[in-house]
């Protein structure tokens, strides 16, 4: 527990420092957040246009789709803000600069991730939260204490799941020279996760539930709040999946650091 406290304190310090530094680049901050918001507004507008022509998408109406979409945005915030450094992993490994992460008495994954904080995530979260509130009001969702407790847990589970899957994809660089295309491929699931799983046929529904669990990025956890009927196992599975894949990701990272020998001799 002492260890957890140590890491939390350390991360808070590092995070505060980075936010201070990044805020100095004011143009960057505004442009990237503005673009992030505009991008997601375009996404929501696309949904609106689709639903303008068709009453339902696999039984779901527009406000519900926005609810699911906004959940996915909020779930991606952790990845965006705290895990952004994974995109640089291949550079660090190929140039040898990665070696510095071995030399401090802190967990190397923690050290690596803590080096980069992406403030675009703020725009992402604001968009998501705003749309979430809007849609939940429009849908007349009743926020019982039970639901209010479930929301952060489910969000955390999804966040961890998305972040872990991308981390695993990035770790490919420890073994293969350039696993960028794998990372980009897994990344594309973020955008595709905003649609209800009911659109798929049995085969793909199974694939996206069990093999690459995109369904748990947003749909299954969000559905908990949209339907009052019996929910089945998918309701509580996303935190389980999240924890499980995070555990796997950390293991893969450690194996990768033990195998990577640095460049040169």
């Amino acid at each position: 527990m002492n260890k957890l406290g140590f890491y939390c304190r350390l991360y808070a310090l590092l995070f505060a420092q980075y936010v201070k530094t990044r805020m100095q680049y004011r143009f960057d901050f505004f442009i990237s957040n503005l673009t992030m918001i505009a991008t997601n507004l375009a996404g929501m507008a696309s949904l609106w246009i689709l639903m303008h022509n068709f009453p339902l998408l696999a039984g779901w109406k527009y406000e519900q789709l926005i609810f699911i979409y906004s959940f996915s945005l909020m779930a991606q915030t952790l990845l965006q803000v705290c895990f952004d450094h994974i995109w640089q992993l291949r550079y660090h490994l190929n140039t040898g600069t990665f070696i510095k992460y071995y030399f401090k008495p802190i967990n190397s994954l923690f050290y690596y991730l803590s080096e980069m904080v992406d403030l675009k995530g703020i725009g992402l979260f604001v968009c998501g939260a705003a749309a979430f509130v809007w849609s939940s009001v429009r849908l007349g969702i009743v926020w019982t204490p039970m639901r209010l407790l479930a929301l952060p847990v489910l969000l955390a589970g999804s966040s961890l799941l998305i972040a872990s899957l991308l981390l695993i994809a990035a770790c490919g660089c420890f073994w293969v020279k350039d696993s960028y295309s794998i990372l980009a491929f897994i990344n594309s699931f973020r955008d595709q996760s905003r649609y209800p799983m009911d659109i798929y046929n049995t085969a793909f529904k199974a694939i996206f539930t069990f093999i690459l669990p995109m369904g748990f990025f947003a749909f299954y956890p969000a559905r908990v709040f949209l339907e009052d009927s019996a929910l089945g196992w998918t309701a509580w599975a996303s935190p389980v999946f999240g924890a499980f894949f995070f555990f796997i990701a950390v293991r893969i990272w450690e194996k990768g650091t033990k195998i990577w020998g640095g460049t040169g001799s």
Partner: protein
Amino acid sequence: MENLIHLENVSKHFKVLNRREGLGGAFLDLFSRNYRTIKAVDELSLDIARGEIVGFLGPNGAGKSTTIKMMTGVLMPTAGSIVINGMNPFSERVKFVARIGVVFGQRTQLWWELPVRESFKLLKEIYRIPDDVYRANLARFEELVNLQELYGQQVRNLSLGQRMLCDIAASFLHDPSIIFLDEPTIGLDVAVKAQIRRLIRALNEDKNTTIILTTHDVGDVEALCRRIVMIDKGKLIYDGTTAAFGKLFGSYRTLRLMCREGEFDTMDALLPSMREKFAISAIDTQDKENHWYDITIDQDHTKLSDVLSWALNTLPVKDVQIQEIKTESVIAKVYAGGK
């Protein structure tokens, strides 16, 4: 005194894919992989005591960096054992690393975008340095190199020399028992090099820190290292004091002859006959624009005075210099296998 660093018969083997030639070969490579083993480090044994400053020398690709990486816990040895500070660096990495410091010449261990002061504060947190130790160490750094002038600047805005000073100071901050310095003076001007060497020496004396210095800079070796370890082709080829090292080729002298204007052809024509008469180690014409010919002689085999008198009589010589062999040339000779 118990040895702080103990390497015993350490080896590191790498499996490298033998790439077959040709198109058919590339195709075959997909199905059956054929590996060969490279012995980057071959049964190396080494002991270093507390407080020593040891220079690690060796040509590039010689296994020097691989050895350092094994000593710092980055790589696991294929065979042999490494015990440093009573720990196995690889398997006990986090605990081990808390007691060492590492400085890489080209890359900083500090936080690039943060002011120096904040980097130091973060290090205090990470290494759990007590307040009094922290303050005392900072005071000492300020005393030695006026570190306080750099506190407010972002690490990215420092010059290479300033950054190096900060990195070295930072590595001593948590009072480690061993510090690994990799090319600390590379790319720096003479004045800054001197400053850095003074800093390292002072802190080593203060805290009796063992220092492993990897360098290609002879000045570093001469200024700091009492002991030299040389690694080539994965093996330890020299382990002894710097003084003895210099004397390895102490019998060698370089006789410099300045050729008279316009008589190069004569000189060139006559030199082979000098080689026939005397056992000459090497004839160097690097400084030809200034008309100098460098003739290296091993005094154990040839008398310098004999060569000199012959040269003055036979060759078109305008001026003469006699030089001791430089440490650099010694290093080059050892690399070339002339031990």
